[in-house]
């Protein structure tokens, strides 16, 4: 604990955390979007304007908040100065010059009446380079942390596991937490100056007999409201990359048919035990199968939901074969088959990111998987090559351009820092890096799938590869992208649309999912 930071801060920060709740509880129209500035001195809000899907902020507001001098020059140039350093913007250019260096923005500055609006990324990508305090933009939370405050981003996940339940609470960057039990709730106190936490911390879900709600108690404390069956808890914490992961297992009181009091839940099912084929509604409610794994700090190794992502769609046809087949149609046809087979034979929930011929943004595809807490993400594509002879299926999992990121952090004060430095768009990076913690399992699933495909469909060499694939980077679960074959190869284009090929592919996917699930259930790494 660092006592120097805490005492005078909580009041201001508590109001930040409760901002959404306060605004929504008042009987006023929906609040205008705002960026919350969080500094040691307190907080303030800057109004945001949404233009062409970009969150924009007024240069005049920034000038007031950061003591900047803004001048409109001739030929559409605008200069923003701070302590002798200057940023030059041009009215129709998404590039700005920061002390002579070029930095890109997602959109050009826009005029709104007498005011100039700039994308919020202007703060992290341009202003941060000339400002004398750290500026850490948390775009998803609409939060800007100024200075060296420790404001970990908190995510909470709850998994009911039979008679028990598991809360997984991640704090990024790392922050230690202390868990204590009160009469009807647990308090989790973080060693931080404030928390960047969604409101509510845990998305609304079915009422649970162990857990009623998770709420923000004060600036640095969460409260876990306990249900009537709660009997005890077990908490463990461990670092995972830049995150501190706190796992709290909630243990249930004995029921009429349950195990004796105080008895820890039995071990997981033996490897290979098949699950019930379907979940019959008439099944007696107790005793539920206890499956609390013996190791902590890992995500619950069970597969309940699979997200299948048929690539492209709508006016984005993807690769088009000369004979007529389009990638968007091939991927949708295979996705529907996969859904039918896995749901019918494994009883798992299968989500499709699109179930018809329409455009779905890449971000939205990953968001569907993340928001539904999918345990596995499979993106389906068909490949294209500049040479017609190229053929064979490939499986990709994510790669991150670490060299570029490293260059950005290690080049000294002139560089655009990213990892940990917070001067570029730190939250964008963190969201984009969600896949990093699942890479081992993504690689394992890719290998499993390759073994299943090997004797059934033509494979490329190498069959498993890595690339900076946009759709996989933000997936918060094991994730792969399958290129089922080449539509630019006339023979393959014909093959890919046949029932025989599509069924072979679906069977391979099905077998890989079963093996992946069984290996996870056995507590091993696939």
């Amino acid at each position, binding site marked *: 604990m660092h006592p120097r930071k805490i005492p005078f801060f909580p009041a201001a920060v508590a109001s930040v955390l409760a901002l959404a709740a306060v605004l929504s509880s008042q009987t006023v129209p929906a609040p205008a979007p705002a960026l919350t500035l969080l500094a040691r001195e307190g907080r303030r809000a800057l109004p945001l304007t949404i233009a062409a899907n970009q969150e924009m902020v007024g240069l005049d507001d920034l000038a007031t908040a950061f003591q900047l001098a803004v001048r409109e020059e001739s030929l559409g140039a605008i200069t923003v100065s701070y302590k002798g350093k200057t940023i030059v913007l041009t009215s129709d250019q998404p590039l700005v010059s920061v002390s002579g260096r070029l930095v890109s923005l997602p959109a050009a500055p826009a005029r709104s009446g007498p005011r100039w609006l700039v994308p919020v990324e202007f703060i992290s990508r341009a202003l941060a380079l000339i400002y004398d305090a750290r500026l850490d933009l948390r775009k998803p939370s609409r939060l800007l942390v100024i200075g060296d405050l420790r404001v970990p981003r908190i995510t909470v996940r709850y998994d009911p596991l039979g008679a028990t339940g598991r809360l997984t609470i991640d704090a990024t960057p790392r922050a230690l937490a202390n868990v204590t039990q009160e009469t009807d709730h647990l308090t989790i106190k973080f060693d931080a100056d404030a928390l960047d936490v969604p409101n509510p911390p845990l998305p609304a879900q079915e009422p649970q007999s162990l857990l009623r709600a998770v709420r923000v108690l004060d600036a640095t404390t969460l409260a876990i409201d306990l249900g009537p069956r709660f009997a005890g808890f077990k908490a463990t914490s461990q670092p995972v990359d830049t995150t501190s992961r706190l796992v709290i297992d909630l243990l249930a009181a004995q029921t009429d048919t349950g195990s004796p009091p105080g008895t820890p839940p039995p071990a997981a099912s033996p490897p290979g035990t098949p699950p019930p084929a379907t979940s019959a509604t008439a099944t007696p409610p107790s005793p539920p199968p206890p499956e609390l794994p013996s190791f902590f700090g890992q995500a619950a190794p069970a597969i309940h939901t699979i997200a299948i992502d048929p690539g492209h769609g709508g006016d984005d046809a993807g*690769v088009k074969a000369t004979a007529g087949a389009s990638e968007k149609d091939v991927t949708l046809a295979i996705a529907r088959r996969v859904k039918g087979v896995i749901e019918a034979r494994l009883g798992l929930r299968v989500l499709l990111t699109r179930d018809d011929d329409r455009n779905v943004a*890449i971000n939205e595809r990953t968001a569907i998987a993340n928001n539904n807490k999918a345990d596995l993400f499979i993106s389906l594509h068909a490949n*294209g*090559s500049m*040479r017609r002879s190229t053929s064979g299926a*490939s499986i*990709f999992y994510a790669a991150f*351009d670490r060299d*570029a990121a490293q260059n950005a952090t290690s080049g000294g004060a*002139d560089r655009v820092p990213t990892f940990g430095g917070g001067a570029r768009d730190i939250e964008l990076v963190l969201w984009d890096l969600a896949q990093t913690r699942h890479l081992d399992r993504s690689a394992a699933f890719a290998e499993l799938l390759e073994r299943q495909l090997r004797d059934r469909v033509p494979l490329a060499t190498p069959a498993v590869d890595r690339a900076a694939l946009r759709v996989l980077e933000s997936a918060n679960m094991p994730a792969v992208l399958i290129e089922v074959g080449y539509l630019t190869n006339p023979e393959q284009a014909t093959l890919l649309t046949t029932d025989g090929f599509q069924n072979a592919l679906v069977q391979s996917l099905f077998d890989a999912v079963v093996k992946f699930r069984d290996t996870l259930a056995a507590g091993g790494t696939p």
Partner: protein
Amino acid sequence: MNAGRKLAIGVAAVAGAVLVFVMFVWLPRWTTRATTAGTVGAAAPAPAPPAASGRKIKARLFYVADSGMKLTSVERDVAYGEGAVAQAREIISAQIAPVVEPLVSAVPPGTALRAVFISEGGEAFVDLSRDVVSSHSGGTLGELLTVYTLVNALTENLPAITAVQVLVDGKEVETLSGHIDLRRPLAKNLTWVQ
């Protein structure tokens, strides 16, 4: 009075020198450069042979390997450019120029170079015409080969360039055809070169 005349003559001499420099040194160079940029991507039957009188450098350019799965590098003469930006522009211009069999380019035909910027940190921004998106044949592999043709052409030949970000019509793009993340500059990656 005398001092005033001397000052006036001095100012006139300096102005004259500047005028001579602009007319005979800067302007010709600027117009040559603009002409070069303007002709990039024009449909030519074969790589334009560099002007016999111009200085050349040796550069490694990247094309699709016979397997179609990787890139292969080829050493070529590329026009000399004064300074990193001009040299980067010459390299990209040569890289995206149309080629004849057996070479196959991973950059779609018709793609034109609009501009090259280089930040102090060595990140190059290559601004291409929309053809790089609209004429792209698609696929993860096709997109990988296009992106790393451009990234490697600059990072391999110009050590000062550490990473490359592709812009389209002056704007940042998420991907070219729905696969590779282009929102940040990408570092050299020779795993896609055989």
